[in-house]
């Protein structure tokens, strides 16, 4: 009995998981890969899963990956979603740099501020996507983007939850 109480119950030897440094990036790629699901939709109102995961990680920690990893991650996202090559490369790297600025300027953050930040970045990203679509010959009215924006913003807490859970798991806490 006493001996059993003294046993570790798995609380000792719990270091970081193997591959701890690539788990965040791998989760972003996995979320980007959701774009190959066999969904045939009338309109593109689904959130941009890869971007949401990237935002969730970046808002959770600044050192999830070096900032420049956003470029190759965006490249993979472009290839998987069929977006014009370079769109996510640019947008995601810009998000990382913008967040570096925000980190310098803010003294403290709580959950609501993170959500608001994510909302601003999501809107910026969707506007960039809208502009690029217009330049490539499909000038859709902006109202068409609103459902996607609202759904993405509402879906963000879910991705923040996934990121925080994954973070605890990968660090073995």
């Amino acid at each position: 009995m006493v001996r059993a109480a003294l046993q570790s119950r798995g609380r000792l030897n719990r270091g970081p998981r193997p591959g701890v440094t690539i788990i965040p990036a791998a989760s972003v790629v996995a979320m980007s890969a959701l774009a190959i699901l066999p969904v045939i939709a009338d309109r593109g109102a689904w959130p941009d899963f890869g971007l949401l995961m990237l935002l969730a990680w970046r808002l959770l920690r600044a050192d999830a990956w070096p900032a420049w990893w956003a470029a190759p991650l965006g490249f993979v996202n472009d290839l998987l979603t069929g977006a014009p090559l370079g769109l996510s490369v640019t947008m995601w790297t810009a998000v990382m740099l913008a967040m570096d600025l925000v980190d310098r300027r803010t003294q403290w953050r709580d959950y609501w501020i993170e959500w608001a930040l994510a909302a601003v970045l999501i809107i910026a990203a969707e506007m960039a996507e809208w502009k690029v679509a217009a330049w490539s010959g499909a000038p859709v009215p902006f109202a068409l983007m609103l459902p996607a924006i609202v759904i993405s913003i509402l879906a963000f807490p879910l991705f923040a939850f996934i990121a925080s859970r994954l973070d605890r798991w990968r660090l073995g806490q």
Partner: protein
Amino acid sequence: MAAPVVGPRPGWSRRAQYSLFFGFLAAVAGLVVGLIMLVLSLVAPSSYSAVRGVALDATAPITGVLSQVGATVSGLASGAGNYWDAANQNAKLKRERVALRRQAIRAAAIFQENRQLKAALALREHSREAVASGRIVGSSFESPRRFAVLSVGRSDGVAPGMPVRTADGLVGRVIEAGRIASRVLLVSDRANIVPARILRGGTPVISTGRGDGTVDIRPLEVGRNPFKRGDIIVTSGTGGLYPPLIPIARVVRLDDDGAIGLPIADPSQASFAIVEQPFEPEALAVASGGEVQR
């Protein structure tokens, strides 16, 4: 709850400061490279066709398998629902009944598939030249553009610019072709402009996608609104890309000088899509060389 900012605070370590700074430089470089790539893919969309084709080939089979799994699972679920009714019957009858019903379901599925294949074949017989027929397995559900992924590619003879249709009507045209899969610009995409006419009377019109699964139809001649609800819009063959007389849309709503139509060929319902030769082969050269809009 003030979250501790786990930020880039390298402290006094010179090495950490350098690595942070070079990381920043690398990110800026990534931004510049991304911008260059984006401009290139806007100005010359065909410049990345090789790498995009490879990505399409790598992902489309997975999408295809998943869509088969999805169809099977939903089939199993709806099939299992049917079996619950037999629960209070005796074991033998139940077994017989289950077996019979399984057979019936299988037979019905084969029958339906047969009918669709036959429809596709019959269509192939009196249309000019079918290049290939495949399944629509995926779509761009995260983007304002309307693309679909088709399970046939260059190895089946598919090339960018070829029109795609189902037995019901026009789906769109191929804009990218990998070896075993291709990407289709749907008629509901804003960049897809189809010369058309009203089946009743033959008034020439233009159909443009609206990006939300419907198409915008405008008459070529300004004046009285020629549309009626329920009108069928068919391709006119003008421009040489789309063969004439393929149904595009049905008019569902009128506005001041045009109408809004619902595409007749629903990509999510169609089992088979047929890739055809362009109506006039010269149109393919134009469509595949730089004119392809993405």
